[in-house]
């Protein structure tokens, strides 16, 4: 056990400041453990979101020494023992209180995405799909909705183009549907026009922070951009594909959200 120092942002939508705390820390502790100890010993009302404490639910996203991370998977032993660890909420979304941000915008984006639309070919035993054809889709479905990728996306974080770009999290959601072997919806026009695929300038910051190691940029966003390019800028190839290619897909638009999820 040793005493460690923390600077934690305290405040709400009206403003706030960093406060200093010092707690006993033992072997194997993660940043979230230290926050819990601060709650118990010093400040019962320190607001933080968490759930599983094992990197599976994506609730405890925050910025630790400036880096967006899951606090339950960030070990204190990764930091110099004598250095103060600075903890603040993720920056790309409005603050509710202390380490808790209002991420409701993300839930609204998900509702704009046209749901999975399976073909009618399913057998009595369910859909017939081979593992190699679903590997990529399963990679995207590992997403735990921690929104760290949204937090570091320049289009959202620096340029605040929330109205034009849906963010990397939902590009992988769209890619997971677009590449699903049994989906019959054609989302290409919508990916470009409604969800803003053109705005991503491929800096790969989202991929770097993904705790699930999803290769967001190269495996999801770039292939979607390529499909958009084929459709809009190489119509001959697209037409040939449509005539002689695989399954026919019907075009779908984004869904206009109605406000039904409240944070």
């Amino acid at each position: 056990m040793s005493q460690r120092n923390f600077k934690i942002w305290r405040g709400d939508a009206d403003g706030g400041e960093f406060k200093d705390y010092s707690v006993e820390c033992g072997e194997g502790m993660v940043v979230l453990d230290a926050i819990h100890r601060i709650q118990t010993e010093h400040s019962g009302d320190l607001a933080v979101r968490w759930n599983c404490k094992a990197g599976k639910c994506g609730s405890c996203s925050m910025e630790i020494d400036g880096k967006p991370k899951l606090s339950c998977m960030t070990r204190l032993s990764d930091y110099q023992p004598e250095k103060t660890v600075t903890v603040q909420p993720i920056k790309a979304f409005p603050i509710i209180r202390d380490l808790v941000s209002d991420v409701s915008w993300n839930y609204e984006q998900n509702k704009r995405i046209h749901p999975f639309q399976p073909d009618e070919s399913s057998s009595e035993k369910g859909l017939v799909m081979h593992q190699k054809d679903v590997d990529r889709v399963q990679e995207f479905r590992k997403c735990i909705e921690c929104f760290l990728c949204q937090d570091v996306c320049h289009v959202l974080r620096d340029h605040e183009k929330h109205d034009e770009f849906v963010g990397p999290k939902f590009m992988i959601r769209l890619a997971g549907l677009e590449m699903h072997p049994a989906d019959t919806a054609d989302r290409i026009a919508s990916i470009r026009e409604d969800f803003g695929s053109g705005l991503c300038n491929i800096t790969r910051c989202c991929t770097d922070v993904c705790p699930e190691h999803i290769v967001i940029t190269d495996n999801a966003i770039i292939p979607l951009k390529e499909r958009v390019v084929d459709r809009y800028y190489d119509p001959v190839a697209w037409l040939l594909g449509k005539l002689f290619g695989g399954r026919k897909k019907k075009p779908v638009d984004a869904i206009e959200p109605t406000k039904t999820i409240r944070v």
Partner: protein
Amino acid sequence: MGMNLSSDIQRIRHDVVVIGAGGAGLRAAIASSSRGLDTGVVCKSLLGKAHTVMAEGGCAAALGNADSRDNWKVHFRDTMRGGKFLNQWEMAELHAKHAPDEVKLLEQWGAVFDRTPEGLIGQRNFGGHRYPRLAHVGDRTGLEMIRTLQDHAIHQQGIQVHMECTALRIVMDGDKLAGVLAYWRDAGRFVLFECNAVILATGGGGKAWRITSNSWEYTGDGFDLAYKAGAELVNMEFTQFHPTGMVWPPSVRGILVTEGVRGDGGILLNSEGERFMFNYIPEKFAAETADSEEEAERWLAGDKNARRPPELLTRDVVARAITKEVQAGRGSPHGGVFLDIASRRPADVIRRKLPSMYHQFKELAEVDITKDAMEVGPTLHYFMGGIRVDSNTQMTRVPGLFACGECSGGMHGANRLGGNSLSDLLVFGMLAGNGAADYLDKLEATPQASSETVDAAIREATAPLNREEGPNPYLLHEELQDVMNNGVNIVRDKEGLESAIQSLDSLKQKASAVKAHGSSQYNPGWHEAISLSPLLITAESVARAALAREESRGAHTRIDFPGEQDRWQAVHVIISKSADGSMNVRQESAQAPPERLSEIAHSSLTDLEGGSA
């Protein structure tokens, strides 16, 4: 904080309110809304974060994709045997029959399960299941399921999700349900949901123990809401200790290590390197369990004539065996035993089949599970007992109040098979949604919420903020966890249970005087203070039921009453709230099972294999 009583609080009207947004709650909401009902979902966390997200191994359903001999009858028989025949028979039947269709429905809603070589939904082996039966996605099956249900539910007409909102009290109109009082965790304000049916899908109460796989949400809210509304709790003594939780480092103690590790070939070893599970095969399972390492190896290699390795015995058996090895001084350095997959499977297979286990041990314990054994030990994981419901409608004895998923009791009897939880929440979520719709179809007058209950609940909830001083709620919670880990653990006796009940009494006194500092806005200390009441109801009901059942059956082990006793074979322990506010415990004889089911449960496997569903 200022008192805003029933006269001026926010009111939201729904036909049905579902409390909890894990798999059971979402499935119930989908069923209810598909019957044309305006359905509100109230959840303590953000959508998609409930405990279902942490389920790892898979969802049990006799699809027969991996072994065509499987069918619902074999699944039903496995479930009854695993539950030591204390299960509510019709629930186990409905579960086994509906599970395959529910899994296929999830696929139609976008779930992408791992595939068989033929391109069908793949199925893996698990403890107590005769055949490979668990539809799965690596070791993140729960994530796949909750995300599928979430993405489907948000596009359903008539579902409205209220996130970060905690339910406090069921509100009645005479003997009928009329609403539920809740508060927004962010703003700290109260809200009255006016509705005529409530479906509880709140999960268990593992947070009453120190060593648990459960997250902060698992404070037994559903038990508390139902109990205070007049419903009964059944067989609360059956709390499942999952055999394999992490034991080191201390900060992660209790976090789950999936049974999939053993399903995929992992073995348990003591400090002497002995594969000790061969010494713990119960007589009832001896005929279906390998009796030598040689046979167990043949099973792993795919020999269909070989019997299953003893590491895949039911969870109660494995958890007790580990406890005994540790007590006998053959434990690992940090008080567990070793779980070895590294010497059993190639590294790339381990990383593909168990990616999140690989990640979890690498990041949190600095152990590479493709090279070294894991240290594991029992962790409080699941409530078999819970709110008593009708098998078909999922309604409690309170008209309009329903329960499904972990918070309901009966389906799993004295012990739950791994994989039967994810299927349970789909099947009974669906039935509860339909049950609520059927109830509303027949309801004539519209019950109205009484303001007295609302006012009293608000006063009680705000008291910790308003009083000047009092005990620290976090420390009180830790005290409770120690009481349960010491007195109501995996092995129990009269003396320990009585002393735990006494300690709980004094904790109740302290809890009623607790102080939360700060305002009501997103204040975890206040939330903690409010959760003490459900935690204490949960703890007391488990302790009292455990004291009542004088035998050892499934997950309930009494060292002063070893072995299953015939007298208790068909007895349920029922808990309800007395008129004077005290906790009433009584024994009730179970009804004789329908003959058709009794026959199946006691059939030999050969009779059922290939039997038509």
